[in-house]
């Protein structure tokens, strides 16, 4: 068995008595005070997450912009320093290598920071290097140099200013960032997150990450683990790579075409997406709300009333905020229309539900 990687905050998690578990090759905190308590803290006040496991790749040089635009589905040309875009890297067949954020750094010549999923760091970096042949650029995996914490929830802006003394947060709009310093160390302050609430993600050195974390925890900000990170992103309708996006599940199937600019001259996977758009994908990702409280889990079959299988659950919970059993499911396109009745097979019984919009929870972002 491979040794688990540790984030700069590993000792801090153990000291807080976190329930730890392996995730994406890292020993990560799942919860501290309990998933329900942490989930509600983020919805109603604030919480702080260690997300140092996320990967960071820096791309700079004369061909950086052309290269990122070639491997990324969203439109990178014309991005201003401080702008952030969400999108995917695709294989030529439209399958997803990873979903990621692209930061246009504050530099004269275009330079970018690509933030990728922890489980995909090696695969993504190898993929990027293989595509970079012939491009005049520098490509660096900086995942171990950047720590990252996420401060999420409606009180985040206030905590950032009052507890950390960071004044640059207030004017930032959602999906923008600044490069600044905090107590002498470089800091990327980004108004982004994975919870459906307002909040910030702070990228800094490992030492600075430890100090930011300690300062927040000492001030009483609630530590939150990966357990509620998943329940929060799920309610907000956000995909998780490996569940709602994968080598088999394209962004068109997942309903994420708005992040794929098909009017770009080219990007890897564009032709496959255009064909899927024109013909309609065979399967689509939908939301399903159940009438009862039985909980749909990833892998459970989705059926018609007579038991005919038409799909599979990708993520499901009894939603804590909405007090309702909900799931994402990949179903045959014929059954993807809103209000279509569908049944989910949970252990010995089938439970009736219907297709609903995937964004179960109304998000609260800073416009």
């Amino acid at each position, binding site marked *: 068995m491979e040794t688990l990687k540790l984030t700069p905050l590993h000792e801090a998690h153990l000291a807080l008595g976190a329930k730890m578990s392996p995730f994406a090759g890292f020993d990560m905190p799942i919860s501290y005070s309990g*998933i*329900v308590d942490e989930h509600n803290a983020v919805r109603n006040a604030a919480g702080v997450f260690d997300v140092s496991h996320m990967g960071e790749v820096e791309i700079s040089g004369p061909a950086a912009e052309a290269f990122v635009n070639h491997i990324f589905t969203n439109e990178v040309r014309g991005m201003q320093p401080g702008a952030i875009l969400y999108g995917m890297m695709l294989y030529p067949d439209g399958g997803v290598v990873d979903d990621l954020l692209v930061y246009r750094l504050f530099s004269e010549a275009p330079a970018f920071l690509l933030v990728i999923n922890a489980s995909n760091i090696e695969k993504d970096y190898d993929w990027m290097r293989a595509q970079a042949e012939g491009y005049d650029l520098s490509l660096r995996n900086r995942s171990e140099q950047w720590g990252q914490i996420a401060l999420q929830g409606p009180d985040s802006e206030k905590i950032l200013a009052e507890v950390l003394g960071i004044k640059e947060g207030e004017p930032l709009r959602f999906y923008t960032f600044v490069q600044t310093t905090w107590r002498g160390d470089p800091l990327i302050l980004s108004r982004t997150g994975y919870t459906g609430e307002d909040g910030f993600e702070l990228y800094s050195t490992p030492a600075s990450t430890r100090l930011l974390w300690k300062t927040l925890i000492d001030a009483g900000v609630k530590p939150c683990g990966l357990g509620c990170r998943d329940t929060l992103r799920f309610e907000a309708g956000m995909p998780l790579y490996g569940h709602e996006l994968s080598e088999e599940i394209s962004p068109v199937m997942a309903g994420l075409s708005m992040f794929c600019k098909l009017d770009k001259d080219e990007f890897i996977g564009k032709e496959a997406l255009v064909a899927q758009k024109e013909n309609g994908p065979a399967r689509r990702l939908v939301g399903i709300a159940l009438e009862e*409280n*039985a909980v749909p889990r990833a892998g459970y079959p989705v059926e018609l009333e007579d038991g005919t299988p038409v799909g599979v659950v990708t993520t499901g919970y009894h939603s804590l905020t909405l007090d309702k059993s909900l799931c994402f499911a990949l179903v045959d396109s014929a059954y993807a229309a809103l209000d279509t009745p569908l049944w989910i097979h949970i252990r010995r019984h089938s439970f009736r539900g219907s297709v609903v919009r995937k964004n179960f929870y109304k998000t609260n972002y800073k416009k």
Partner: protein
Amino acid sequence: MSIVKEGLMYSESHEWVRMDGDVAIIGVSDFAQSEMGDITYVDMPDEGDAIEQGEDFGALESVKASSELYAPVSGTVIACNTELEDAPELINKDPYAAWIIKVQVSDKAQLAALMSAAAYAQKVGA
């Protein structure tokens, strides 16, 4: 540290049994509820269902995971605790008061396979 209540019998899969004549009252242990965390749903059988010792008869759902319930004895389900339909958290609050089903036991000799409170306490390190 979890509580193991005296006077009950326990299964390897963390169900407890209290006998009332030929009727087994069945719930889950404090250890089981604390491992699960906040319970959000109890999947129960129907009254009249036959259950088999060692086979699953239902499940508990927490936020993160589901956990099957295994029958500590064979028999016929004569009652389900309907209070748990609206208040599954009662199992977290007092797992020994929040029974799940009552079973008319078909073969009391099967009870010999269960553990005493002392043996179970040793198993879960209580």
